[in-house]
């Protein structure tokens, strides 16, 4: 079977697509990661947005989301501050009376597709993936529904299908990942009539943003929101008014989410390896302390007993010696007494004999 040109190109295309699919971010790794090279992004220019809600409509259509109660042509919904929810991947909010602005301003909200996403770092089943094309996608087939990604996301983007009892999913903008693979633009970018959304490689978008700020310094704030926020995002925003006046947080910092938990995670091997050693040591010490205490007690008892015994023995010996001595002395005394008596008796006897002899002589 020969390989046709068409088939070969098909394989090549599949291989190319394969590289863009499901590659997870190596969060909290030990290598410097500054985003996938040539990854894509969108530059949103607040000064150009006219608040027509066409992007919302296109998003709803291409992602086959349920139709909202009010049609997308209804602009009054913008009187309320809205956010993304389980049926809406993107919303445009209106900001009246922003200082320095001539009229109302509009800001589009959707997933910013962080370079190092907090949701992906937080997910304990790796349901989120940072694809090499820049899209952060979600795999509902493994999701447990713990909603930690919603806690973690600094932009408050992921929403949850709370009303579903059996198959609730996290819902969020996919950067139209399936369309990107097919070579199509994201739905919102494609429809935008005001060219408020510019699609391209992120590094080129940063250049374009700087050019616009440089060309019209009076029109723009000198900051590209998303260039460094939370370690950088694929979606970038430039504006003529401070970002806080558009409901965007300026206190997020430049630290990527995985960095925030790296320290706590690095403690795990320390605890898991040090604690058993230390605790076994503490156990051994307390055992030894008990053992030594027991031994010391036993030794003290033994010494006391020995001392008492030797004392008793000494006393006994002494008593015995004394008794012996007394006995001897008594014997001596008796002997002496007997001897003395014997001597005395003898003397008396001889004296009596001497006295009797002259009496016998005259007779």
């Amino acid at each position: 079977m020969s390989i046709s040109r068409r088939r070969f190109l098909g394989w090549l295309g599949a291989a190319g697509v394969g590289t863009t699919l499901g590659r997870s971010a190596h969060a909290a790794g030990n290598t410097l990661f500054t985003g996938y090279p040539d990854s894509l992004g969108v530059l949103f220019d607040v000064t150009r947005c006219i608040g027509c809600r066409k992007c919302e409509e296109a998003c709803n259509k291409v992602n086959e989301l349920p139709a909202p109660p009010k049609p997308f042509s209804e602009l009054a919904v913008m009187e309320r501050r809205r956010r993304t929810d389980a049926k809406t991947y993107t919303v445009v909010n209106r900001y009246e009376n922003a200082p320095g602005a001539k009229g109302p301003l509009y800001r589009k909200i959707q997933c910013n597709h962080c370079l190092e996403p907090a949701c992906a770092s937080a997910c304990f089943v790796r349901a989120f993936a940072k694809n090499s094309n820049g899209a952060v996608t979600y795999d509902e087939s493994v999701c447990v529904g713990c909603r930690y990604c919603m806690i973690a996301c600094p932009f408050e983007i992921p929403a949850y299908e709370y009303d579903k009892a059996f198959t609730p999913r996290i819902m969020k903008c996919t950067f139209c990942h399936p369309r990107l693979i097919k070579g199509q633009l994201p739905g919102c970018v494609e429809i935008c009539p005001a060219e408020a959304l510019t699609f391209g490689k992120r590094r080129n978008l940063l250049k374009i943003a700087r050019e616009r700020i440089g060309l019209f310094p009076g029109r723009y704030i000198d900051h590209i929101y998303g260039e460094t926020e939370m370690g950088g995002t694929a979606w970038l925003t430039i504006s003529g008014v401070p970002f806080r006046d558009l409901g965007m947080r300026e206190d997020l910092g430049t630290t990527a989410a995985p960095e925030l938990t790296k320290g706590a995670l690095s403690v795990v091997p320390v605890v898991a390896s040090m604690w058993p050693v230390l605790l076994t040591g503490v156990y051994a010490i307390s055992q030894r302390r008990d053992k030594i205490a027991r031994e010391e007690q036993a030794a003290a008892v033994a010494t006391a007993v020995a001392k008492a015994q030797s004392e008793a023995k000494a006393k006994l010996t002494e008593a015995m010696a004394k008794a012996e001595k007394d006995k001897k002395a008594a014997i001596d005394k008796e002997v002496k007494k007997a001897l003395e008596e014997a001597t005395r008796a003898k003397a008396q006897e001889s004296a009596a004999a001497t006295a009797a002899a002259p009496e016998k002589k005259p007779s």
Partner: protein
Amino acid sequence: MPERKIVIQKPALTPFNVVAGIIVVVGLVITVIRFTQGLGATTNLSDYNPWGIWIGFDLLVGVALAAGGYVTSAACYIFGLKRFHSAVRPAILTGFLGYALVVLALHYDVGRPWRLPYPFIVQSGTTSLLFEVAACVALYLTVLFIEFTPAALEWLGLKRARSIVTKLTLVLTIFGVVLSTLHQSSLGALFLIAPSKLHPLWYSPYLALYFFVSSIVAGLSMVIFEGSLAHKHFHDKMDAEHLREADGVALGFAKAASWVLAGYFIMKVIGMAQTNAWGYLGSGYGLWFLVEMLGFVLLPCYFYAIGAREKNLKIIRRTAAWTVLGIVVNRFNVGLVAFNYHLPSSERYFPHWMEIGISVFVVTIGILVYRFIVTHMPILYAHPDYDAH
């Protein structure tokens, strides 16, 4: 104790049983609603507030208050404080029940509870602090179960199995301390990823340390608190050793809790200095933070010390109850009150009555199972056929 088996039949319809029965029935009804209608029908959770009291109370508070198991067994078996031996079994039992109930409550909270083993069998997200929590809680629940089995095996009369398990005591205790250190701290570290959402007075790089150290206080206080409740209701189940040691346990634990609370307070001050959050003390949140720090940390620290010095069990028991409340306050503050502080009040969370209903239901189940076990198994007394291990 054979003579203890003679118990006067109490009437089944005591006020406690009636109230518990009503709670269980209501809980079962809510359970049906939760698993047929979903989280939306039973909770006030929203896209801004993905975690409510089923996490803030059932998980964060539940795990902290179940710390008595590792604290007591470590004190007795590792640090060799054998005078606390009679307190180990009740503490292990309440620890085991606590963790079992945490896992039960999580089934209500997560969207697809039948997938709870997925992080271990399908795909592991090891960069997540929640993975660490899940892994350690699952393993520690197993450890607590094995540590608890001697009581059940004595009750069932399985002597050989019991003697095998008791040989594992030291290994299990060390493993338990390792796992507890990891997940107690990770529960605090869960919030490290969201510095923009947690109020600066509560957000700190030391969050993990705070949660771990306060869990020691929680464990010590819970043992004293449970002990005083057990004395009230299960006095007839206690043997001479338990009764002789009980006061010593309370005094020793009070002294330890006082020291740990003092250390915790100092850590908090150092943490404040590091994040330089002093400026927030003047705000409304600052006032509430001071209530927590002074009212629920320094105050019990002082009263524990007084109680231990004067050997006043009444003070110690009241302080223990107050400290347990303080742990609840702290975990609620981190998980619910100070979380999402930046949102307008209309977007803030307040629990649905059914969420409270499930939390009360879960606690009630715990009390009922505890009562069944201490009235049937050798928990508060040593089984006469076995030596203390």
